């Protein structure tokens, strides 16, 4: 196919041609960035928490006023929850993933260090922490029963805090001790005394988004038994199909252990529900971006169809002459498709530059990551395909113009 006649025709329709180019460029730039944002949101939604999510339920409870027996009552609560039919394990946490409230603390590698190496979240663990959440220990060991301390005793005035051991996540271990075995190493966080890493778990997300994506799994577990007024999160593991039943039984059990407490019904649900709600905003944003992308492609396609139809109409006579001179239908069809391909290519090239410019702007202002190069060919293929699809109908109409119209006066 000879491109030169196409180019010379386009040069005579500079305005219309540059409008198509501009529209394709804008659409390409927006769509590349939008697709990137969608994939970023999807990554968030699909995040691995490290928990046996589909087996877990959470009951949140609080006392009416303060409770002098909170630690003892927590023991009783846990014992009765564990005795419920269908309950595999039960524990209590100061904070749970997928709820935006967390304990965070700076972590240093030695006592004299001025700036923290990282900020990690602190889970306070009770005996069945690892089993209940379904965490996977990849190095070291779990806490031994004699390591646990009641948080209430730990928090008393005059007691200097001492946390000899901790379990941390693999991601935190790699950040603190890159390339080394973290088990047996020490760090400084809550106290001026060193804390020794005794175990490493594969995954455990922090409750909040603090610190951004890289810090998602900077989590440490301290053997401090929380009481129920410290967040009030009873977490129970059961079979997926028994969750509703166990949830009801757990509420009744807790209520029976003292009517001077309130079960926070709206926060009492399965972990799947918690997760679903936690990611509602990114999910909605992904949907919105998706809808906008489709609408943009549609608008662009309609614009191309409109202008191409106009062109065909304008060149009816010219096409007739070419047909009369022996051009086949296929050649006419290819002419318009090549023309569109050329315009789309220019538009895509400009669009990519623009896509990078927009990405730079978003990176500077809204902490977005750099647009991976992969999105550019993807966007290009999408728009080339769209252009060919959009121009097909007008081009076919052009090809079907009979040679006779050239000889007929208009």
């Amino acid at each position: 196919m000879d491109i030169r006649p196409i180019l010379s025709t386009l040069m005579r329709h500079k305005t219309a041609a540059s409008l198509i180019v501009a529209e394709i460029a804008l659409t390409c730039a927006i769509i590349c960035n939008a697709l990137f944002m969608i994939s970023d949101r999807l990554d968030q939604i699909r995040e691995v928490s490290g928990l046996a999510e589909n087996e877990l339920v959470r009951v949140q409870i609080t006392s009416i006023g303060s409770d002098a027996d909170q630690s003892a009552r927590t023991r009783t609560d846990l014992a009765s929850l564990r005795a419920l039919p269908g309950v595999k394990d039960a524990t209590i946490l100061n904070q749970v993933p997928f709820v935006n409230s967390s304990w965070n603390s700076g972590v240093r590698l030695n006592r004299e260090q001025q700036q923290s190496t990282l900020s990690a979240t602190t889970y306070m663990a009770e005996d069945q922490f690892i089993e209940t959440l379904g965490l996977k220990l990849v190095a070291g060991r779990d806490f031994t029963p004699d390591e646990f301390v009641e948080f209430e005793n730990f928090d008393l005035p005059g007691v200097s805090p001492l946390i000899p051991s901790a379990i941390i996540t693999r991601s935190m271990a790699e950040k603190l001790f890159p390339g080394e075995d973290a088990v047996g190493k020490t760090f400084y966080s809550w106290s001026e005394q060193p804390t020794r890493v005794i175990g490493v778990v594969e995954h455990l997300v922090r409750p909040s988004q603090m610190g951004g994506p890289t810090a998602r799994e900077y989590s440490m577990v301290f053997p401090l038994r929380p009481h129920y007024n410290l967040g009030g999160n009873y977490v129970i593991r059961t079979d997926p199909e028994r969750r509703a039943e166990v949830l009801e039984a757990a509420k009744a059990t807790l209520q029976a252990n003292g009517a001077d407490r309130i079960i926070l019904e709206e926060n009492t649900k399965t972990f799947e529900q918690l997760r679903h709600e936690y990611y509602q905003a990114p999910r909605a944003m992904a949907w919105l971006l998706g809808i906008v992308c489709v609408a943009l492609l549609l608008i662009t396609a309609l614009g191309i169809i409109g202008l191409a139809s106009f062109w065909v109409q304008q060149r009816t006579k010219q096409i007739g002459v070419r047909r009369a001179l022996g051009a086949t239908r296929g050649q006419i069809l290819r002419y318009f498709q090549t023309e569109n391909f050329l315009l789309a290519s220019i538009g895509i090239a400009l669009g990519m530059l623009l896509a990078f410019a927009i990405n730079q702007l978003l990176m500077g202002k809204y902490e977005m990551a750099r647009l991976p190069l992969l999105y550019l060919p993807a966007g290009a293929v999408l728009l080339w395909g769209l252009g060919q699809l959009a121009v097909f109908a007008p081009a076919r109409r052009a090809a079907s113009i009979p040679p006779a119209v050239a000889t007929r006066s208009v």
Partner: protein
Amino acid sequence: MFAYYCNLALRSFRRDKALTALMVVAIALGIGACMTTLTVFHVLSGDPIPGKSDRLFYVQLDPEDMQGYTPGEEPAEQVTRYDAEALLREKRGTRQAMMTGGGISVTPGREGLAPFVSDARYTTADFFQMFDVPLLHGGGWSAREDEAHARVAVISRALNERVFGGGNSVGKQLRIDQTDFTVVGVVDEWRPTPRFYDMNSDRYGELEDVFLPFSTSRDLQMGRNGSMSCWGDSDGDSTGVNAPCVWIQYWVELDSPEKAAAYRDYLVNYSDQQRTAGRYKRPTNVRLRNVMEWLDFNRVVPNDVVMQLWLGFGFLLVCLVNTVGLLLAKFLRRGSEIGVRRALGASRGAIFTQCLVEAGAIGVAGGILGLGLSLLGLWAVRQQPASYAELAHLDLGMLLLTFVVAIVASVLAGLLPAWRAMQVTPAIQLKSQ
């Protein structure tokens, strides 16, 4: 003449139904997307306390120790209880209040109503006057009640309905955290957007249900909400007066820029004194921001909302380029008609105006449809789980803006095609007929 142009535009629409419909839909989609996102942005970035936002100031001091100190960094976002109480005692502003969020339990005296938990605000006397809180019944409390650690409460209208079934409940007793409080005031509908006085909790959420004197809340060891940052050892009580923890918001009302400057000097002085006394370790680093500065600093509008605004504008831009192309096709297709009109004496200006009227008419149609789409879009926004969702409503200003944007956008889109159309030479068109 204008009426004639409108008439011509209508005829042209009838002739090219598909093309016209396409343009109207394109403009409508662009306007709809743009106005939806703009309305959400407008609602979220507004002034929560107009008329007073430049007289209310948020205080920041830097009480931390030297560990983790980086010169030039922002001071802590909240103040310690010690500092808040000291500043409050010295009363150097027109009004001042310290506050923090909290969580309490309410045990209603009514039959069949189970105890429930509510959000609370522990604050001091000036809060209500300082923030222009509208009161349905009664009023706030005075500094005397603060000092006396009085068991008084101001409650929200919603809580008043729930516990007392509405009506004037001033003087009635309310059981909070197993202690009886006397209701002294009921707050009328009040929804400052964003809830500027505390950036730690839900920024667009509803008003707290219960307001209590800060001193009372500490007496009764009531649970607190929001962020707390500690350094050093708080010796078992992180909410104690001497705890090395920041967790309190401190607001001061200052009537003039001069008073604000003087207050800043006072804060610098205070900070210097604290360092001399050995309490502060870091170099003096204070901030005094008014409401809008404080909101800006906190980047109060969610990033997603800003991103959606840009996306809306980008979408409108694509729709406009699209419309420019289609208008061009439409006008040039009518080359012969324009040629005849020119030959019959229409000036270039007349052709230009006629084309712009046609473009404007498309804009009006697109605007009406776009308005419908933005109402639909806002309805969709209100279905979202975000706490600001229910605030997404179109006001009169936005409604007018929709039409202005639609018409301006379509006329702008019509400029180039109209300019091209007016250059049609009558002779060539007539000859080729």
